């Protein structure tokens, strides 16, 4: 599961609605299916903790922090926790909806990769 999310440029592969991105150093610019572009700052990619942290820096989002933690819980099982904090409230709801869909897609890809039905 960590292999799926650890590379910043992989986000179009597992976040529904993000159709492309460019990565330049710690800056990632994502483009959505509606044609919107958002700049993001990548704060942490920790291969030991399996933690990916980023924040959206584009207007009109006043504050955003996205944290993906992948926690091994058994030899073939892991837990993915994808948390989002955002302001204004409306964007928290919108990004939260997208994040939930992303978690589903990460799970699906991980299961395909493992060739079984476990997470």
């Amino acid at each position, binding site marked *: 599961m960590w292999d799926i999310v650890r590379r910043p440029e992989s986000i179009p592969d597992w976040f*529904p609605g993000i159709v492309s991105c460019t990565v330049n150093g710690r800056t990632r610019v994502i483009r959505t299916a*509606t*044609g919107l572009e958002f700049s993001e700052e990548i704060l942490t990619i920790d291969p030991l903790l399996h933690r990916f942290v980023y924040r959206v820096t584009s207007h009109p989002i006043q504050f955003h922090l996205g944290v993906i933690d992948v926690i091994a819980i058994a030899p073939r099982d892991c837990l993915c926790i994808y948390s989002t904090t955002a302001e204004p409230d409306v964007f928290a709801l919108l990004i939260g909806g997208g994040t939930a869909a992303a978690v589903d897609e990460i799970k699906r890809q991980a299961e395909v990769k493992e060739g079984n039905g476990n997470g």
Partner: protein
Amino acid sequence: MGRKILFITTDQQRYDTVGANGGTLSRTPVLDRLAAEGIRYERCQPTSVVCMPSRASMLTGQFPSTHGAWMNGVALAIDAPSVAENLKDAGYATALIGKAHFEPFMDVFGRFAENSLASLGVPTVEQPWFDGRRGVHRGFDYLEFATHGVMGPLHYAKWIGAQHPEVVKNFYEVVDHDYNVNAAGGGDTGAPQVKFNDVPREWYHTDWVADRTIAWLDAQSDDRDWFCWMSFPDPHHPWDPPISEIGRVPWREVPLPANYPTTASQREAILDDKARHWRAWYDGRLVSNYEAPAKWIPAKMTADQVREVNALNAVEVELIDEAIGRVLRTIDHRGWHDDVDVIFTTDHGEFQGDFGLLFKGPYHVDSLLRLPLIWRPAPSTATVPSVVSAPVSLVSLAATFLQVAGQPTPAWVEGAALPVDDADAMNRSFDATATEWDSVLFGVDVHVRTVVTKKHLYTEYRPGTMHTGTEGELYDLDDDPLQRINRFDDPAYASVKAELAERLAAHERRPGERAAPGVLTAPV
């Protein structure tokens, strides 16, 4: 060759805005003629008083508690049944032009097809759920979308942004900097969601929807059957019709609505007689519907603001009527007149000053519940014109379309086809209709169930932020048509209340498979 179907919807239009229904503010000769030639329904009710659940009911023939799109911001499941799919399978060309709203508008990622179609390629983008049979989306072969403004990813916004960028700034900004529905006032009176819009009429979305419908009709072969859903975004707020047209209805000459109590004390007394979320909204202590601007306080609305909103609303209704007239002329020109059924309605109503309120929310009274519905059957059927006074529901539309097309009614459809007259309504037990409301947003949850008969309107509030589950409203439609006197706790109405409570319970117990409630991912 069978009967073709032109299904016309508007958004947030009151029953009394149509001349045939007694409206006097706007002139609606086209709708009036359709009503005179066909069937006019005096008590049509939505399944929900907000857009997404109500529109999903039109498409599925199911109540929100069945189709699962239980509030605005909850997408209708992609595998939900669709009457358009059945019509497509029956050989109909299928189109939806204008406002769909089966999926959330606010969708920054474009996860929903309605929002990504215009960017990714119109009208044949392939999505993960596309199986080559269901049309582009939900059974429609052709889709072109519009909504209330000029921002966002839909086709109309992209068209006007590309073709006429100089006028985009003239439209009202629907949301504010915090992405809440804008409370900013405009016009002459400072009414919320009002703006003088310097846009040529032919570039406004009402005429755009008619233009695109005409273009689609022109592309159909003479002998192809078709189902065309022409869906106008107006007269839903913002009220910003083309400035060239606003002189049609001078707001200073507009009478106040019959249900606008003219003094604050009158308004407060009436609201205090209802469940307590009414007064809480009026005072600015509670907003339970995202589309009512969070920073707007109804108690501060002036009588002149009510007049101006109603005037601009009437202008928008007239523009729609004229746009429908243009489409009907195209149909006549193609020689299809005798074989086209025309059905006109809207998704829910609007307060427009009733009780001192504006917009909508979990408030089940005629302002929001009583809708215009006109069915002009294909003249070749020689249907006798009639007026149906029995209660009917938008949940009946899907079965009606299938009946017109000569198709069987699938088991998933909950509403029977519309009655053609009161005798038909009586024979088929059209005696009550239900409306549902469920919302959970930003810490406020409200759950409402209502049943309406010819004589009564009965509402129960389920436990939530403002209600314990014991509150309700009961109105006698014969002696209190404005629904100002709540008889819920009146001992004289105890037996009526018991009967209506049982009707609601029966609605909850109705047979059939329910979809899992969808996930809230946006406020609208």
